[in-house]
C-alpha cells in the first residue's frame, strides 16, 4: 500500500470558477448534466452526481452591513459569498464500498475508493448508502459513478485533474497526513486573522466515517454547504442490524414452528387445527 492520498479543499480561497468541474469532466469524459437554470446563485450544477464529480456550491450571505448611504437595501445586501468545491470524501470507512455487493467499488493502493465501471452492475445500493449523497447511478448508462480521485492519473504519478486546474489552489492534493498538517496551520492562521468561523470538516479520524480522504476548510456550518453536519457510515451499525435481523429471523422461524406445534400437528396428517375451526 502506498501512502494515503487525499484532497484538502480550502474553501476560504475558492473563487467559484468551476475549473474543477470542467477539468474533471474533460479528463473523465463525463456527459453533461443538462442545461437548466437553477436560480440558486451561480450554481446551476446543484449537487454531486453520476456525471458531476466536483460541484461548486455558492452561498450568498448577509450580515449586518453598516452602509449609511445604502440603508434602503442594506439588510438585503450580500457581503459574504461562500464558494466551495465539493467532492467524494473517500471515507476511511466508506459506506458505498462496504455495501457494494460486486466488488466494483474497491479500495486502491492510495487508500481511495473507486468504482470499477467494468464490474458495476448498477444495483444502486451504494447510492443511498453514502451519507454525503455523492455517488449516483447514471440514467441511460445504468452504472454508479463518482470521483476516482483520478486513479488513472495517480497511477501515472499525476495529480487529479481538478487539483491541477484549480487556479487558487483551493483544491490541494497530496499525502493526507501532510494535508492535515497544512490544514491545521491554515485554520490557525485564519482564526488568528479574525475568522473565528473557520473550521475543518472531515479531517478527524474520529468522526463518523473515520475521517475523510477529502476534507474541507469551511467558513460556516457544513449543512450550509449541503454537507451533513455529523455523517456516520451506515455500516457502523451493521452488526447490530444483523443481530436484530437474526433475532427477527429466529422469531419468525420459531413462530412458524410454533404455529405448527401449537396446532398439535406433529402427528401425521394433522387433522385438528386449532386455528382452523
Amino acid at each position, binding site marked *: 500500500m502506498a501512502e494515503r492520498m487525499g484532497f484538502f479543499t480550502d474553501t476560504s480561497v475558492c473563487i467559484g470558477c468551476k475549473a474543477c468541474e470542467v477539468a474533471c469532466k474533460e479528463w473523465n469524459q463525463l456527459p453533461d448534466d443538462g442545461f437548466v437554470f437553477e436560480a440558486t446563485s451561480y450554481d446551476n450544477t446543484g449537487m454531486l452526481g453520476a456525471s458531476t464529480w466536483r460541484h461548486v456550491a455558492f452561498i450568498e450571505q448577509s450580515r449586518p452591513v453598516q452602509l449609511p448611504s445604502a440603508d434602503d437595501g442594506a439588510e438585503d445586501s450580500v457581503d459574504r459569498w461562500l464558494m466551495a468545491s465539493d467532492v467524494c470524501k473517500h471515507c476511511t470507512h466508506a459506506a458505498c464500498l462496504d455495501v*457494494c455487493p460486486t466488488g466494483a467499488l474497491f479500495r486502491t493502493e492510495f487508500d481511495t475508493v473507486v468504482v470499477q465501471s467494468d464490474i458495476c*452492475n448498477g444495483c444502486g*445500493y451504494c*447510492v443511498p448508502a453514502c451519507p454525503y449523497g455523492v455517488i449516483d447511478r447514471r440514467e441511460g448508462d445504468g452504472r454508479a459513478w463518482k470521483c476516482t480521485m483520478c486513479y488513472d492519473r495517480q497511477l501515472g504519478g499525476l495529480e487529479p485533474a481538478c487539483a491541477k486546474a484549480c487556479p487558487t489552489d483551493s483544491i490541494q492534493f497530496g499525502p493526507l497526513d501532510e494535508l492535515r498538517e497544512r490544514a491545521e496551520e491554515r485554520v490557525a492562521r485564519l482564526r488568528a486573522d479574525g475568522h473565528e*468561523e473557520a473550521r475543518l470538516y472531515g479531517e478527524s479520524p474520529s468522526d463518523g466515517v473515520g475521517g475523510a480522504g477529502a476534507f474541507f476548510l469551511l467558513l460556516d456550518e457544513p449543512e450550509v454547504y*449541503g454537507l451533513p453536519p455529523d455523517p456516520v457510515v451506515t455500516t457502523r451499525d451493521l452488526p447490530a*442490524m444483523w443481530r436484530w435481523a437474526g433475532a427477527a429471523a429466529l422469531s419468525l422461524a420459531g413462530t412458524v414452528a410454533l*404455529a*405448527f406445534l401449537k396446532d398439535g400437528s406433529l402427528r401425521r396428517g394433522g387433522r385438528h387445527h386449532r386455528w382452523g375451526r
Partner: protein
Amino acid sequence: MGQVKAGTAVEGRDAEFRSYYGRPVIKPPVWHEPHMPTYLYLGGMSGVSSSIAVMARLTGNPRLARTARLAAAAGASVGAALLAAELGRPERFLNMLRVFKPTSPMSVGSWILAAQSGLSAAAASADLAGLLPAAGGAARLGGRRGAARLRGGLGAALLGGRRSAALLGGGGDTGILGVAEDRGFLGVAGDAALLATALTGPLTATYTAVLIADTAVPAWHEAYRELPFLFAGSAMAAAGAVAMLATPRAQAGPARAVAAVGAVVETAAGTLMERRLGMVGRPYREGRAGRLMGTARMLTAGGGLLAAVAGRSRVLTALSGLALTAGSLCTRFGVLEAGRASAADPAYTIVPQRDRLDAVPGEGLQG
C-alpha cells in the same frame, strides 16, 4: 414555492435548520417501483413459505407443504428476476456472486437469495416431479419417513444459534441419507433442499430489512431495530395469506396461524418503530408513504383478525388472504416511499445530526 436561500435558516420539520437551497443532502434510493417493493414482498413471502413448507413437511401436511414449496420457489425466482431487472446492467447479474462481502447486506442477501431460490426451486421441482404418476407413491412414502428423521434436526434448530444451524445441516444430511434407499433420488434431493431452506427462508425474509436499513436514509437506518420485525411480520402475513389462499382450508390451519401472528408482529413492530423514530419517523405518517402505511395497517390488522376466523369459510379465507397480501404489499411500498421521502427532505438528515452535535459539545467538528 419560493426559493430557499442557501445557508439561511429554514423552518424545518421540527426545528429550524440550515440547508443548501433546501436540497437533499443524501441521494434518494434509485430503486424503482414496483420492482423493489414487490421483491421485498416476494422475498418475504418466499422465505416464510419455505419455513411453512419445512414445518408442513415435518408435520406431515403435504398439501400445505406443496403450496408453500411452490410459493417459496415462485417468490424467490420471480423476486430474483425483479432484482435483476432492477439492475442498471442486468446482464451483469452474476457479478453479485463475484465476491462475498459480510459488510454488504446485498452481497450477503445475494448469496442467501441465490441459495433460497435454488433450493426452493429444487424443493418445488422435486415435489412437482413427485406428482408424476411413476414417482408419486415413492415420494409420498419417502416424505413420511423422511419427516420422522428430520425431527431430530429440527429440535436442534429450535435451540437457536449458529451452532444449531450447523447441526441442522448435519441432521438433514443424515436424514436424507437415511431415506435414500426407500425413495427416489429426486425426492430426497428435494427434501434436502427444502430442509436447507429452513435456514435460508427466514434469512430471505428478514435480510431485506438490513438491506434498506444499512443506508444513510434516515427513515430506514434509524429504524434498523424494528424493521426486521416489521418485515418478518409482513412476510409471515404474506406467506400465511398465500398458503391459506392456495391450500384447502382443512390443511391451512398453521398458515392462518402464521398469517395472524405475522399481522400482529407487523402491526406491533410498525407502531413501535414510528413511535421510537420520532421526527425521523414522520415520513411513515405523511404523504404518499403515510397513506400506504396507513392502508397497510388497516389491511394487515383486518386481514389478521379475519385470519383467526378464516378457517370457517372460503369467503373469509379469501378476504383475509387478499387483505393480508395487499397489506404486506402496501407495507413494502410504504417503507420504500418513506425512505425516498426522508432522503428528499434535508431536514431528516440535518436536524438529527445537528441535534447530536449540539447535545455533545466538543464532539464532531472542531470549531
